[in-house]
């Protein structure tokens, strides 16, 4: 009995040893190179990514690219990256990054500094705000891959019926909602829908309201809420939209999809959302097909002009990649004009290269591209700081509290400031 046990133990030890040796050997092989690319699966008619990866392999004999899917939500993706990168297990060479993570990952030392490898004018074709969010400390850490900007969608048919032009200020928007709803007498028709659930999307919506009102979340010198009174006023205005019924009560639980569906079913006049929604509104069985147009987000009367927040994904090379040159070549391939055109055609993701917005082939499918270009150029990034997630996670419940009316906006701003002070004092 005892002998048998010992033998079994020896056998399993031997097996472990073999596995370890095998693992090492696999790491040193000189044959075909495998690049691992981490990205989120693309929703849309057809995922163009596999074909693009095969193209790269064809152009680089002896290189195999493995595309590995990331978890679904942005939060889960972030958690996946920080655990794997902090744990020093470099299981991947090229990573798709939400643009808000780039400064954080760069500061943590996880990204390869691309600055020395870039050609002098290589970044010129991209949107300046996309390049800004890929830059930290004067160095470039990623290549912009796809682009997002906040838009105001409106029901062109309804506005035309009442002889209205898309609103330039929120005050105008409120007035138009009153007029159209009074005329339509449709109880199911909401006015302006946007994202007020306690999550990242809420921060984006509040930032846009801040900017329209001349307020900021973070100043260049690191001051938090440099214009607290204006910030509180912007929050009060958003709360007012809900109280007055211009926005439905469920705005406080709405994310992108919830609000997109309400508008897409024909139950709202205005919607704040990203460019991806347009394709869905123009879909074959859409209730609002041919009735939707978009415009810049409104500003405030006697305030600033409206600006959409920008977002999107970048491609960064892991500093621990054993094939950094190949990984960068793959990033260049995927962000090339041809690849971005294929992605824009196959999936509803907007390019980061400006010339594509006047591309005849793309314009045939998406006639709104030139108009989108102007809005994208005017877009503004969320604060570019390594502490963005800390910032966002801290202000979310405070903004939400002001929106649902359990805290006066001034107190929400003050308490968010105190908490951020405690956390940031540790890292600065």
């Amino acid at each position, binding site marked *: 009995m005892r002998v048998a046990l010992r033998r079994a133990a020896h056998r399993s030890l031997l097996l472990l040893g073999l596995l370890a040796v095998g693992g090492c050997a696999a790491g040193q092989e000189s044959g075909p190179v495998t690049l691992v690319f981490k990205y989120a699966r693309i929703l849309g008619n057809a995922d163009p990514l596999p074909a693009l990866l095969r193209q790269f392999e064809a152009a680089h004999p002896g290189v195999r690219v493995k595309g590995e899917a990331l978890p679904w939500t942005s*939060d889960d993706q*972030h*958690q996946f990256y*920080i655990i794997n990168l*902090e744990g020093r297990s470099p299981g991947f060479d090229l990573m798709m990054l939400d643009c808000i993570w780039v400064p*954080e990952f760069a*500061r*943590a030392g996880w990204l390869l500094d691309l600055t020395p490898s870039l050609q002098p004018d290589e970044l010129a074709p991209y949107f300046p705000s996309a390049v800004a969010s890929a830059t930290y400390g004067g160095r470039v850490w990623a290549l912009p891959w796809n682009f997002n900007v906040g838009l105001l969608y409106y029901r062109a048919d309804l506005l035309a019926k009442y002889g209205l032009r898309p609103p330039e200020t929120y005050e105008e928007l409120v007035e138009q909602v009153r007029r159209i709803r009074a005329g339509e007498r449709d*109880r199911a028709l909401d006015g302006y829908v946007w994202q*007020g*659930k*306690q*999550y990242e999307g809420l921060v984006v919506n509040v930032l846009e309201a801040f900017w329209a009102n001349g307020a900021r979340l973070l100043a260049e010198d690191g001051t938090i809420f440099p214009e607290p009174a204006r910030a509180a006023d912007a929050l009060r205005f958003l709360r007012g939209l809900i109280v007055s019924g211009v926005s*439905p*009560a*469920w*705005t*406080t*639980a*709405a994310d992108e999809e*919830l609000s997109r*569906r*309400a508008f897409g*079913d024909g*139950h709202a006049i205005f919607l704040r959302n990203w460019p991806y929604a347009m394709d869905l509104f123009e879909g074959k069985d859409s209730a609002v097909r041919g009735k939707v147009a978009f415009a810049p987000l409104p500003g405030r009367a006697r305030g600033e002009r409206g600006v959409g927040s920008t977002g999107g994904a970048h491609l960064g090379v892991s500093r621990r990649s054993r094939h950094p040159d190949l990984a960068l070549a793959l990033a260049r391939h995927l962000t090339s004009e041809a690849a971005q055109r294929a992605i824009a055609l196959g999936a509803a993701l907007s390019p980061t290269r400006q010339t594509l917005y006047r591309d005849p082939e793309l314009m045939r499918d998406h006639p709104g591209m030139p108009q989108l270009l102007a809005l994208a150029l005017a877009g503004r990034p969320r604060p570019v700081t*390594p502490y963005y*997630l*800390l910032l966002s*996670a801290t202000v*979310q*419940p405070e903004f*939400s*509290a002001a*929106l*649902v*009316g*359990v*805290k006066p906006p001034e107190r929400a701003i003050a*308490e968010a400031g105190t*908490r951020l002070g*405690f*956390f940031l004092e*540790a*890292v600065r």
Partner: protein
Amino acid sequence: MTGREAADRRRGLVCVAPTVLALGALTVYPGVWVLWLSLQRRIPIFDVSRFAGFENYAFLAVDPRFWSAARTTAVFTLGSVALEVVLGVAAALAIHTQRRGRRLALSLLLLAWAMPAVVAAKLFEWLYHPAAGLINVALGRHAVNWLGDPLVALPAVIFADVWRTMPFVAILCYARLLAIPADVYEAAQVDGAGRLATLTRITLPLLGRILLLATLFRTLDALRAFDIMFVLTGGGPAGTTETLTVYAYRALFQTLQLGFGSAVSVVVFLLVMAVAWGYLRLLRAGAVTA
């Protein structure tokens, strides 16, 4: 001690060693490590690592978000456990008195219990959907903003949790009911006990011990509740459904504040231990028999 006894003793120690080692490596070591982390300001990705004493705990003491999370945890635990016990016992009694369809009823109960929390939460997300949700469609003009109203969101989350975990209590109680001999009831009938007296004097006291156990399990689970509110509301609106574990998760995994997040975890740990200790004392004292 004879040689044989000593050998037995040695063998006993050898046999128990793997368990002790496993517990030590998997429970005690991480526990002590978290305690140590909670006394530091530690954010590894920004190279912050310094001893901070009770700084994190001092901040928690005056942190409104922490107290709000503590209150939410308490309300959630009391509300969901109370409802689960009452409804669970009622369901067990109802099934017990049923002559036909018992198996079907039990299978349906088990189905709800076997569903992963995240799936159940997704299901309720659709039920609570403000425009297309079944509940609001049924309510028609009186539609409720289930997950976006600070007064309604927590009860809505509690209800979803009760739906999922009430079957656990019901099935435990049902098993105990089956084990009560019929002659006890016959004797009660002979003595002229009515239905209410039978329930309060016989059935419920005999269920006591199993109910205490079920309550213990459910309370400990509810104190650490995470998935249902994380999926349904993400802690909102206004943080009204943010429990201590959700708060700890946000600090630990979303913003990587290992020191501060550990301090929140230590509080949750102490809370769970205190409650478990209270229950175990009740169980041991034999306050409830049968």
